[in-house]
């Protein structure tokens, strides 16, 4: 095996596969041919981006988080406040929201590099709870439980106004999701991304070959936080409204659930999970609006008892075999 072969086999999984391109084309076609479902597409795109951000943290870095809504909420509140008090431009607002999420991720990353899974669970949840208490406390700024009202977002470049039918919003959110996906795809297939997966699988060995474990965990956490902030900013901009709900525990639980349905540890997991979760939600709540959590709970219990790999195995098995064919295994 020459150096050239090794380079090729290492870079093979980074190439775009035909089905990925086809899937993305399909995703882009949906809001074009089904404009009446634009609001749902927008919601799915936002949840997909949020799940993608959790995938970096959980699926690639192996950090169990029950408080990912902290970053989502930070992004949402920052974008909304920025639009209300500074300037209504959506793109600048999105950048500010993303930065705010990332900054909080950097600030809180020392909290998650120490301790056990339980400690991390508690600390991530604690951060989200602290933020929620703060948002509740400073209600003259955030609107408290009533929500922040009067957020007006300006048009996108090219004079696309956000309309009530959420057509502009759906394309905007999809574009951001696509961009984030492409960037994350580059990152997880880079040498740094590979080292991150090595860390998740065996922390001790990674440390033994002389790479810094804590630095990788922190950067991955901040990266996930920034993306979650972007997802929150999208929600605030496309709905023009933020309330304490964006920091609520159920948001962290929902995104975890979506990611697990799609399968953590590959980038499509978040997207497929978001689609499945939203569709599931829509279907179940159409016949039992009040008790849909029961069925979601039952689904979770059964899924965990059966082993969550089983749900994604058909996909992953396919991927693995393809990888083996090109000399990956």
């Amino acid at each position, binding site marked *: 095996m020459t150096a050239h072969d090794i380079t090729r086999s290492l870079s093979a999984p980074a190439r775009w596969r035909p089905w990925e391109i086809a899937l993305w084309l399909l995703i882009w076609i949906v809001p074009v041919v089904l404009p009446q479902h634009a609001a749902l597409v927008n919601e799915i795109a936002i949840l997909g981006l949020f799940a993608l951000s959790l995938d970096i943290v959980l699926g690639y870095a192996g950090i*169990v988080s029950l408080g990912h809504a902290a970053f989502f909420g930070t992004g949402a509140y920052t974008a909304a406040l920025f639009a209300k008090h500074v300037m209504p431009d959506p793109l600048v607002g999105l950048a500010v929201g993303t930065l705010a999420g990332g900054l909080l991720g950097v600030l809180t990353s020392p909290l998650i590099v120490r*301790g056990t899974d339980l400690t991390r669970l508690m600390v991530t949840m604690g951060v989200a709870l602290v933020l929620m208490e703060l948002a509740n406390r400073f209600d003259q700024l955030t609107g408290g439980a009533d929500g922040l009202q009067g957020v007006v977002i300006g048009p996108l470049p090219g004079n696309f106004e956000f309309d009530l039918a959420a057509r502009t919003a759906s394309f905007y959110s999809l574009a951001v999701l696509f961009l984030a996906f492409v960037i994350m795809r580059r990152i997880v297939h880079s040498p740094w991304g590979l080292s991150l997966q090595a860390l998740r699988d065996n922390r001790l060995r990674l440390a033994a070959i002389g790479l810094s474990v804590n630095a990788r965990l922190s950067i991955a956490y901040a990266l996930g936080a920034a993306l979650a902030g972007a997802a929150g900013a999208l929600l605030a901009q496309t709905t023009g409204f933020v309330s304490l709900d964006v920091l609520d525990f159920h948001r962290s639980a929902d995104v975890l659930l979506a990611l697990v349905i799609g399968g953590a540890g590959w980038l499509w997991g978040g997207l497929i999970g978001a689609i499945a979760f939203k569709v599931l939600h829509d279907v179940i709540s159409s016949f039992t609006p009040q008790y849909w959590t029961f069925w979601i709970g039952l689904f979770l219990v059964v899924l965990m008892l059966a082993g969550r790999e089983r749900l994604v195995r058909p996909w992953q098995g396919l991927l693995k075999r393809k990888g083996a064919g090109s000399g990956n295994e």
Partner: protein
Amino acid sequence: MLTLLFDGIAYGMLLFVLSLGLAVTMGLMNFVNLAHGAFAMAGGYVLVVLMRGYGWPFLACLPAAFAVTALLGAVLERTLYRRMYGKPHLDQVLFSIGLTFMAVAAVDYVMGSSQVNVQTPEWLRGRFEFGSGALSLGMGAYRLFIIVVCVALTVGLQTLLNRTRFGSRLRAAVDDPRVAAGLGIPVNRVFLLTFAAGSGLAGLGGALGVDILGLDPSFPFKFMVYFLIVCAVGGTSSITGPLVAALLLGIADVFGKYYLPKLGAFIVYMLMIAILLWRPQGLFTRSGGGR
């Protein structure tokens, strides 16, 4: 001032009884059971149904709440929980969140979503006043009753753990399940009994707490954080750790809500994060042992 301290202690003792089962499950089976609050809720509703529907006396309902939730815990351990022991923490978390979702929706469906109350008996509604001024102490009879029950339980459990054969088996199984099994200790049965007892205690705590904590279907999520704080801060290797953590949490919460009503919960969470940063394994840990 002293009254607040007294209320805080009562609250803390209640939290201790509620969380003890969780601490044991975490320490013993290394299982993160977020559905623990659902057992407490079950105990509360058993009390409500028995007292309101069947006119049982309050004192008879408490053991009933314990028994019913213990049975429920035993059945669930046998059928569901046992399969999850070896799985990664993430799976356990999701599994128990799923169970909690189901419990919340089911209770909502059966009992309605509004908060329920019970009439505590006459002799528990009194109030004792001592002293005056800054040192005045007002003790609600019900809170005094809670403290008495919880202290009795704590002493009883401590004796059970330290003085009986079952206690030594349990401690052996916590320290190293494999060696314990090799010595002929029926580890599975010890787990089952402990899980049932822990669920029962949660049920008892839930029943005792109906009057103080309030009871509605969202109970498991509302108090999940508190149970987890007790276990994470107190450590899961002894009974003393969770006790101290629960008392601290109870007192801090009552004081915080009284003096800084809008920042009370904020202080509790910040304190938890700070303690976990300082001692990631909890305040009280034993050296040695299995992990």
